[in-house]
């Protein structure tokens, strides 16, 4: 009984929503809207489980006298202070909304604590991304070289200085490729393959002026846009179709009770 009822609830709620899409008449017509409201209410309350877990974990740290106990206390205090501030503003403001522009919560907490913390936290990610890029973007293999080139071109195309910097950056990238192919050719004994490698190296040198100093100097923003709108779109579309198919398959498994991990 303890397992069958939840499975039945999952089956009925999921199936009714699917039926509501195909039968847009009473009693199914506005079912999606009603269920959506219920879903928002109930899923809002599930947040309490997360809060319980967060506070419980930090209370436990204090109890254990862990070395991070003072920080755990700071976390708990900042949680309750923020919550109390918000509740006071709910009671105090005429709109009963701490997020209204006139509330002190919005004016001070949001603008001077929340926004600086959040945006700086995301801003420092740029350094870690750059460090990850240093490790990932090796021009040794064709695929990682493509990753490097497309990232550099998009970055150059999106900044005002990019147009001026593009010829130099493109020259350096092409020279690196030329040197790489030439260095590889020295280790090859077969004459035909060796000649192909040297030819590729020469093509890279030959392309520096027409591509770097003529085309990209003028058209790097348009090229970056093309890269974002055409090849990037194709790859993204393939990924999105894959996500949709996977999500639909998973949803069917959940509704039919094949996937039951949420019951644990």
């Amino acid at each position, binding site marked *: 009984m303890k397992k069958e009822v939840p499975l039945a609830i999952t089956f009925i709620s999921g199936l009714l929503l699917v039926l509501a899409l195909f039968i847009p008449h009473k009693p199914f017509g506005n079912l999606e809207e009603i269920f959506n409201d219920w879903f928002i209410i109930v899923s809002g309350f599930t947040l309490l489980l997360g809060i319980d877990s967060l506070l419980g974990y930090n209370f436990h740290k204090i109890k254990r006298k862990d070395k991070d106990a003072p920080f755990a206390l700071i976390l708990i205090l900042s949680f309750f202070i923020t919550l109390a501030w918000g509740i006071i503003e709910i009671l105090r403001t005429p709109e009963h909304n*701490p997020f209204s522009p006139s509330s002190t919560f919005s004016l001070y907490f949001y603008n001077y604590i929340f926004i600086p913390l959040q945006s700086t936290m995301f801003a420092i990610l740029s350094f870690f991304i750059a460090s990850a890029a240093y490790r990932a973007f090796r021009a040794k293999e064709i695929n990682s070289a493509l990753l490097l080139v497309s990232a550099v071109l998009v970055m150059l195309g999106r900044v005002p200085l990019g147009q001026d910097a593009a010829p130099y950056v493109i020259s350096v990238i092409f020279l690196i490729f030329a040197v790489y192919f030439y260095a590889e050719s020295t280790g090859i004994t077969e004459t035909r393959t060796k000649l192909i490698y040297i030819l590729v190296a020469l093509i890279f040198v030959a392309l520096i002026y027409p591509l770097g100093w003529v085309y990209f100097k003028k058209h790097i923003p348009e090229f970056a846009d093309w890269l974002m709108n055409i*090849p990037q779109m194709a790859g993204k579309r*393939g990924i999105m179709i894959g996500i949709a198919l996977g999500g639909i398959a998973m949803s069917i498994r959940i509704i039919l009770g094949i996937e039951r991990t949420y019951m644990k």
Partner: protein
Amino acid sequence: MTTIIWTWVAAFFTLAILSFLYKDNPLYKFAEHVYVGSSAAFTVLYVWVFDAYPKLVIGFKEKAGMQKYMLVIPLLLSLFIILRFIRPLSWLSRWSIAFTVGMAAGLGITGLTQGFLVPQVQASFLPLFVRGETVGQTVLLTMNNVIIVFGTIFTILYFYFSREHKGVLGVSSKVGVTILMLTFGASFGYTIMARISLLIGRIYFLLHNWLRLV
């Protein structure tokens, strides 16, 4: 005066987070824990003000008849979640979780089909020859459509693991990887730009609002 004090508070938190670039230190840990604690409370307030209160409390006040009494169901399901903290009755919380999972699955089928699958497939049905005003334009427009159509197909084929990637499937999945690399590279560059613009924003705040140097 109040603004000056709050600007100093914001500058302190900004510098505390930036100090992590040197190494992990108590100042960073302090700011990090304040951020986690306050954003958890922020989310609770947000959910109450924009979701639970208008849908449940205002719903009870404003709705009439059957619609009003039907709100007892989500109220009960919400209360069942809290019963998770009372051990003998904790099994009732499964009902609420089952409801949210069922709803998410139902919305997953309808939402993903309507919002993702059909529009993306529809947008990929493009003509493979487009006549432009000039020969160059014709070549460019045709090439763009060919890249989008075949790029999408080859990307999907790369994720097809039911057969070994040999022969035609092998070649097409290799092209798929190439398209994926271009995609990831371009998205990566775009993400870096977004993060850098956030960093510029924070540095501008320090130099302009706090130190008043620029």
